[in-house]
């Protein structure tokens, strides 16, 4: 452990505590955790590229439904009202809360849309290695978007809103709501079934920048330049 040999295929540093360690070849479905802090260093999902691609395609279709179909409808004293996700944010905007509206739009529409779109591009591109460098850039942005796509939180929020309103009026969940529940399950499923290492292995290297040889990289370090 004290001498990181350049030939070692899977030397890596823990993202959370910086401890250097070698990752043994993992069995399918296996996980490697940091010896010191327990952080999940690496995992080997059954099918790291095909399964997430299928899930992402599904999510893209469901996303369109979730945004187009009404989320829920309300009827009280002979009057009807219904709302979509965007409609909710727009109403917030109209009522004089533009910043809150922007935050809701970001978490409910923009971040998930970017995440799904970027992952779709990355996964489709990953079918034909070597990947151009921009695929890595897209993956980086996609991974940044992930925690901000909050369908699970939003689903619970809508449930609470429904129960609050149910006191006042008759509320019916719409198709958009079921689509959203599906997305709340699909997005974590994409994250779990996907292995970013598989993509990074296939990405063409950026440059011969100021950094010198990478002792931890599989083969590509020396042959890459």
């Amino acid at each position, binding site marked *: 452990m004290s001498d990181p040999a350049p030939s070692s295929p899977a030397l890596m540093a823990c993202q959370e505590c910086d401890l250097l360690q070698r990752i043994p070849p993992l069995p399918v479905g296996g996980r490697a955790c940091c010896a010191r802090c327990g952080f999940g260093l690496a995992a080997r999902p059954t099918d790291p590229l095909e399964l997430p691609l299928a899930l992402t395609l599904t999510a893209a279709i469901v996303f369109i439904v979730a945004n187009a179909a009404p989320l829920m409808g309300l009827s009280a004293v002979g009057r009807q009202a219904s709302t979509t996700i965007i409609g909710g944010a727009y109403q917030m905007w109209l009522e004089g809360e533009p910043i809150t509206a922007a935050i*809701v739009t970001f978490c409910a529409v923009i971040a998930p849309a970017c995440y799904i779109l970027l992952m779709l591009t990355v996964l489709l591109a990953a079918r034909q290695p070597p990947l151009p460098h921009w695929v890595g850039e897209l993956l980086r942005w996609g991974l940044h978007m992930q925690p901000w796509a909050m369908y699970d939180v939003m689903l*619970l929020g809508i449930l*609470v809103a429904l129960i609050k309103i149910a006191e006042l009026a008759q509320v019916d969940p719409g198709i958009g709501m079921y689509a959203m529940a599906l997305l709340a399950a699909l997005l974590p499923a994409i994250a779990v079934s996907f292995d970013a290492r598989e993509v990074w292995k296939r990405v063409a290297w950026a440059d011969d*920048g100021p950094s010198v040889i990478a002792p931890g990289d599989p083969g590509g370090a020396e042959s890459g330049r």
Partner: protein
Amino acid sequence: MTVGALTAAQAGLVSCETCKLLSRPVHLDEPGHCPRCGAALELRRVHSIQYTWALVIAAAICYIPANMLPVMVSKTFATSDAETIIGGVVFLYTSGSWPLALIVLVASVMVPLGKLIALGYLLISVQRGMLGGCRERTRLYRMVEFIGRWSMLDVFVDTFTVALVQLQPLMSVVPGPGVLFFAAVVVLTMLAAETFDSRLIWDAGSKMESQDG
């Protein structure tokens, strides 16, 4: 802690935060860019402590109006009812759905407060070079990171209540000024958790070790 364990920093290596590639930069102080993915390399996140403190303090300031000001105002013919976050919890409890009341109480009141206290504690412990409890503190950090987004719950509750209950002039709900502050608390604490570098928790121990050895 593993005896003789070596961190990447001690070995003169930098791990890319994006693609996890280890590189050996010429100067550790100016590591440059990752040769594989092109992201800027950092030994530790730059000014992590300062940025995180700034975000935590800003969030703590917003936390007060978020809880004092109403988050929604329900209007009927004659009445106008302002409701704070705690008011919403009480309403859910009295209307018989105590499990939801508990969820909202935890997500909207306790989680943001807990996050602020936890991040403050982590920052102080790092600044004072605390040695013990690294594992526990890392676990605390992980919890803050994981649970953060769930505070957004109340913002969504308000948004969709406002969007749906628009039956003018019979009954309508408008957002109160508290929503903005509340959303700000959630976003600021999420960003604070992102800027905090958990490797700093372990650095104090590594430094001690290298001095001893």
